[in-house]
C-alpha cells in the first residue's frame, strides 16, 4: 500500500501539497517544543536544557517503531522507502563541520526556519550564513568531489551492519534512548535552568 507516491495512489502534484501540509506539522511541532530558541537548543550542550535530546530521540524511535509495525502489518513496503546512502568520509567530515556550526550558531537549518517564522533575527543571520556555506560548496564542488564520494557503502542499515534482526536493534535503541532521557533529567536538575 504505502508509500503512497511510489504506488501511484497519489499524483506527484498531490505529493507536493502533502509536503506542504507535512511541513506545517513539522514547523508547528518544532516551534511548540521550543526549537525556535537558540539558547534552548544550545542548552543541550551545557546540560541546562536537554529538550533537544528528548524531542529528537523520542521522534526517531516513534517513527522507527511506527515503520516497523506498519511493515509488519503489511501497510508499508520498506523496500520503497528512501534510505539515506552511507558515504563514510563525508558523513563524518560533514557531521563534524555541522557540529561546529551548531555550537557557534545555535541553530540547525530546520530550527532556523522555525525561528525566523516567529521573528528571531539571529535565525535570519544564520540562514544567510547557511546560504553562503551552501554556495561555497556548490561553487567549490570540484575541490570536494573526491571527499564527497569517498568510501561509499551503498545503503546499509544498522541492523544489517550488526547482523541482528531489525526489531532487536530497535529495542536496543529504545533502551538506549531511555537511558539518555534519564541522564538528561538528571542534568537538568544538576545545572540551573531558565526558560527562554
Amino acid at each position: 500500500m504505502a508509500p503512497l507516491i511510489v504506488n501511484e495512489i497519489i499524483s506527484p502534484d498531490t505529493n507536493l501539497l502533502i509536503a506542504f501540509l507535512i511541513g506545517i506539522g513539522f514547523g508547528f511541532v518544532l516551534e511548540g517544543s521550543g526549537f525556535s530558541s537558540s539558547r534552548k537548543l544550545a542548552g543541550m550542550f551545557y546540560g541546562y536544557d536537554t529538550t533537544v535530546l528528548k524531542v529528537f530521540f523520542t521522534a526517531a524511535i516513534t517513527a522507527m517503531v511506527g515503520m516497523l509495525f506498519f511493515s509488519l502489518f503489511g501497510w508499508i513496503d520498506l523496500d520503497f522507502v528512501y534510505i539515506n546512502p552511507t558515504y563514510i568520509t563525508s558523513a563524518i567530515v560533514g557531521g563534524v563541520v555541522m557540529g561546529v556550526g551548531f555550537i557557534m550558531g545555535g541553530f540547525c537549518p530546520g530550527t532556523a526556519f522555525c525561528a525566523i517564522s516567529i521573528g528571531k533575527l539571529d535565525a535570519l543571520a544564520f540562514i544567510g550564513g547557511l546560504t553562503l556555506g551552501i554556495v561555497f560548496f556548490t561553487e567549490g564542488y570540484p575541490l570536494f568531489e573526491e571527499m564527497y564520494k569517498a568510501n561509499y557503502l551503498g545503503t546499509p542499515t544498522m541492523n544489517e551492519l550488526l547482523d541482528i534482526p531489525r526489531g532487536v536493534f530497535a529495542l536496543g535503541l529504545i533502551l538506549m534512548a531511555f537511558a539518555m532521557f534519564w541522564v538528561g533529567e538528571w542534568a537538568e536538575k544538576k545545572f540551573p535552568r531558565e526558560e527562554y
Partner: protein
Amino acid sequence: MSEVKKTKYFNPYIGGVLLGLVLLAANFVSGRGLGASGAIKSAVVSTVNTVAPTHAENSAFYKNYNETHENPMKSWLVFQMMGVLVGGFLSGAFAKRLKFKVEHSPKITSKRRIIFAILGGMFFGFGSQLGRGCTSGSALSGMAVLSVGGFLTMACIFGTAFALAYFFRKNWI
C-alpha cells in the same frame, strides 16, 4: 536563575512523539523523510540558473543537479519548508511568541550573536552539503530508517558540538 518559570512549550516527550508521527507520515505518504538544507540548495541552484545561466551550464555541480532535477524549486523539500514557516508561525501566534528580536545570552551583545550566527550558518550550510543532509534530513530521518550514514552523521554533529561547547560557553550561558 534557579527559579523555574512556567513554560508554554509542549512536554518534550509529547513533542517528540508528535514529531515522530510527522516523520512517519512523510515516509508513509511520500516514501521519504523530512529535511531542511535541501530546500536552500534548491533556492541556490535556482538563483544561479536565473542570474548566471552560462555559469550553471559550465559548472559541474549545477550541471549535474539540473540534469537530474527538472525544476529545482518544484521539489518536495521546498514545499515542506514553506509549510514549516506557516506551521512555526501558527504555533508562535497561538503561544504569543511572535516578536522581532535577537536572542542572546546577557553576557554578549546582539552584534556578537549575529556574527556567530552567520559564521555558524556558514559551517552548517557547508557541512550539510558534504554530509548529504542536516540534522533533519540526514540525522533524524536517517535514524528512523536505521541508515548507518544517518547514525554516523548524528553522532558527529552532536559529538562535535559537545566537544567544543566549553570554548563557546560565553555565548550561551
